C-alpha cells in the first residue's frame, strides 16, 4: 500500500468518523447526566431529513442545518419528557423514537417531494462544501492550473499531500466535530455545570440535596444532545452525502453508542474510538486494500461487525472494566 492510498483511507476515515463522533459526544452528555439514550439514531435521522429538506427548499445549507438541529431537539425533548418528567423507561422511549424517526422521515419526504421517500439531490450552496485551508492544494488550484486535482496531488510531496488531502478540504462540520471534543472535555471537567452534570448521573439525590435542580440539569443535557445529534445528522445529509435517503443513518447511532462504551464515557477517548470505528468503515469500503494488507480475503461482513465485536469484548470486562455512570437509566424520584 503506498502513501497516497494510506492518506486516502485516513481521509475517508475522518469523514466517516465525524457523524459518529458528534453522536458519541451527544451520548456522552446524555449518559453522564444519567439518561440512557439508544435513540441517537432517531435524532440523527430526523435531523438528516430536515436539514436536507430545508437546504433544498431554501437553497441555503445553513437554514437546513438550523432546521435539522431544531428537529433533533424536538426528539430530544420527547425523550426528556418520557424519561425525566414522566419517569418512563428510557430504553423503551429510545426504541419508540427510533421507529418514529424511521417512519416519519419517509412519510414526510414522500408527501413533500414525491420521490419515493428521499429528498432531491442537493447542489451548490445547499451543501456543505470542503473548506480549503491556506497553502493547501484544492479544487481552486486545479482550476487555475487547468489540470485535474488528482494530477496536482500526485506531484505533491508527502507533507503537502498529507496537509492538502487529510487536514484541508473537509466541510466545516468536520472541524466543528473535532473542536467539540476539547469543548466537551472542558465543559464536563472544568466548569461548574459539568461537575453538576456528572454528579447528577452518579448520585442525583446528592445534587438535589445541594439545592440544584436534577430535572433542569437533565433537560439541559437533552438540549446538548439535540444540538450535537442535529449536527451529526446534518453532516450526513448535506456534507457526507448530497441529500436524504431512507434510513441513511444505517446504524450509526448504535455504533456511536458502542464507541461511547469503548471510550468508557470520556471525551478524548471518544475521539479515539470514533476514529478507529471510522477507519473500520473506511476499510470496509476498500476491500482491495484490506486484501493486500492481510494477504488473504477478509470477509467484508467481518469488518462491518468489528465495532460491535470490539464493544462486546470491552463490555465483557477483559480489557479494563467499562463502568457506566451509576444512576444511568433510573428516573429520579424525590423522596416524599
Amino acid at each position: 500500500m503506498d502513501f497516497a492510498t494510506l492518506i486516502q483511507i485516513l481521509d475517508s476515515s475522518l469523514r466517516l468518523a465525524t457523524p459518529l463522533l458528534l453522536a458519541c459526544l451527544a451520548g456522552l452528555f446524555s449518559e453522564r447526566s444519567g439518561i440512557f439514550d439508544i435513540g441517537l439514531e432517531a435524532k440523527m435521522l430526523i435531523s438528516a431529513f430536515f436539514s436536507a429538506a430545508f437546504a433544498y427548499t431554501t437553497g441555503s445549507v445553513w437554514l437546513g442545518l438550523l432546521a435539522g438541529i431544531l428537529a433533533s431537539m424536538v426528539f430530544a425533548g420527547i425523550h426528556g419528557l418520557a424519561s425525566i418528567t414522566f419517569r418512563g423507561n428510557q430504553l423503551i422511549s429510545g426504541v419508540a423514537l427510533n421507529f418514529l424517526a424511521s417512519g416519519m422521515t419517509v412519510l414526510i419526504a414522500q408527501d413533500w417531494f414525491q420521490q419515493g421517500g428521499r429528498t432531491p439531490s442537493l447542489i451548490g450552496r445547499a451543501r456543505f462544501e470542503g473548506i480549503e485551508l491556506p497553502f493547501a492544494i484544492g479544487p481552486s488550484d486545479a482550476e487555475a492550473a487547468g489540470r485535474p486535482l488528482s494530477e496536482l496531488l500526485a506531484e505533491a510531496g508527502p507533507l503537502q499531500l498529507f496537509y492538502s488531502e487529510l487536514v484541508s478540504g473537509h466541510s466545516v462540520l468536520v472541524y466543528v466535530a473535532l473542536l467539540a471534543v476539547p469543548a466537551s472535555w472542558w465543559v464536563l471537567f472544568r466548569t461548574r455545570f459539568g461537575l453538576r452534570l456528572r454528579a447528577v448521573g452518579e448520585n442525583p439525590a446528592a445534587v438535589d440535596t445541594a439545592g440544584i435542580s436534577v430535572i433542569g440539569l437533565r433537560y439541559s443535557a437533552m438540549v446538548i444532545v439535540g444540538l450535537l445529534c442535529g449536527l451529526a445528522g446534518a453532516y450526513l445529509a448535506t456534507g457526507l452525502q448530497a441529500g436524504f435517503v431512507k434510513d441513511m443513518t444505517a446504524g450509526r447511532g448504535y455504533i456511536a453508542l458502542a464507541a461511547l462504551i469503548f471510550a468508557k464515557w470520556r471525551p478524548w477517548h471518544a475521539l479515539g474510538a470514533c476514529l478507529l470505528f471510522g477507519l473500520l468503515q473506511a476499510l470496509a469500503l476498500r476491500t482491495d486494500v484490506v486484501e493486500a494488507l492481510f494477504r488473504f480475503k477478509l470477509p467484508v461482513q467481518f469488518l462491518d461487525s468489528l465495532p460491535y465485536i470490539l464493544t462486546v469484548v470491552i463490555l465483557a470486562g477483559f480489557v479494563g472494566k467499562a463502568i457506566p455512570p451509576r444512576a444511568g437509566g433510573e428516573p429520579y424520584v424525590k423522596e416524599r
Partner: protein
Amino acid sequence: MDVMPKWADVLLVPVISLILAMVISALVILGIGEDPWAALKLMVQGSFGSTYGWGYTLFYATNFIFTGLAFAVASHAAMFNIGAEGQATLGGLGVALVCLALPWPHWTLALPAAMAGGALFGAAWAFLPAWLAAKRGSHIVITTIMFNFIGAAVLNYMLVNAMRPEGSMDPASAKFPDGTNLPTLHEMLAVVGIPFAKSAPANVALLIALLACFLVWLLLWRTRFGFELRAYGKSESGAIYAGISPTKIIIVAMLISGGLSGLMAVNNVMGEAERLVLNSVEGAGFIGIAVALMGRNHPLGILISAILFGFLYQGGAELALWTTIPRELIVVIQGLVILFTGALDNMVRMPIERLFLWRRRSRQTAGE
C-alpha cells in the same frame, strides 16, 4: 399500596394509551393530506374483511407472538432483551440448515427438527449476552444490540459465501425441499370443510405459537422455576436471600427468550418464504417489545396485541397498495404505540391514579 383496581391497570391504561397513539396517528394521516377514517376502514377491510386478509394478519401475528413472548419471559426476570431480532435471524439460519440438510420425506418429520434447529440457534445467540450479564455484569441491552448487528453480519456472510446456490446472484439460500412445506390454514381448514384463501401464508406455525403462549403461562405461573424467575425480576436482593441463583435465572431466562425468538423462523422462513433470505425477520424482533408492552407481559395479552399488530401490518400493506400512503405509516404507528404504552405510560397512569384516589377519598368522607 395499589391505588388502582386491577382492571384499570391491565385494561384501562393500555386502552387509553392506545387511543392516544391512534389519535396522533390520525393527525399524521391528516397531515399528509389523507382521510384517517377512510384509511382505517381500508385497513380493517384489508385485514379482517376476507379470509385472505385474515391469513396475512394471522401470519404476522404468529411472528409477533413468538417475539412478544421472548421479550416477556426475559422481562419477568428483569432482563431487557432487545436482541430478539438477532436471535430470530440466527433462528432462521438454524431452520434453514435443518431443512436443507436432509431430503425430508414429510413435514411432520421436518417440523420438529426445524423447531429444534431454530430454537437452538436462537438460544445460542442469546447465551453469550446472558453469560456476560450474569458473570461479568455487562449491560444486557448493549450486548444484545451489538449481537443484533453481529447476527445480521453472520447471516449476510452465510448467505453470500456459503449457502447461495451455484450461479445465483441473489443472496439467498436454495429453496427448501418439498417435504418441508408446512400446511397452510387453507389446507388445514379444507379438511374440516371450511373454505380459506389459498394464497395467504398463515400456516401450522400459528398453532405452535398458541401452544407456546400456553406453555409460557404454565412455566411462569405454575412452576417453581417460573416463580423463582418472577421473584428475581421483582427483587434481586430478595431472591438471593431466598436462595435463588441469579446466574441460573439470568441464563435460563435468556435461553428461553432466545429460543422463542428463534422459533419464529418456523413461521416466516419455513412456513412462508421456504428459503432463507436477507433480513427475513423484518423488524419483528423489535415489534415483540411493543407487543409485550401492550400485553403487559402476559401470554393472553401478548396474543391479543400480536393480533392487533398483525392487523396494523396487513392493514398498512393494504393502504400502501390502494392509496398513496407509504408503507412506513405502520412504522410511525408502531413507534407511537411503543411511545405511549411504554415510555409515556405514567402520563396516562398518573391522572387515572389521581382520579381513583379522589374517588376513594370522597367515598371515605361520605361513609364517615
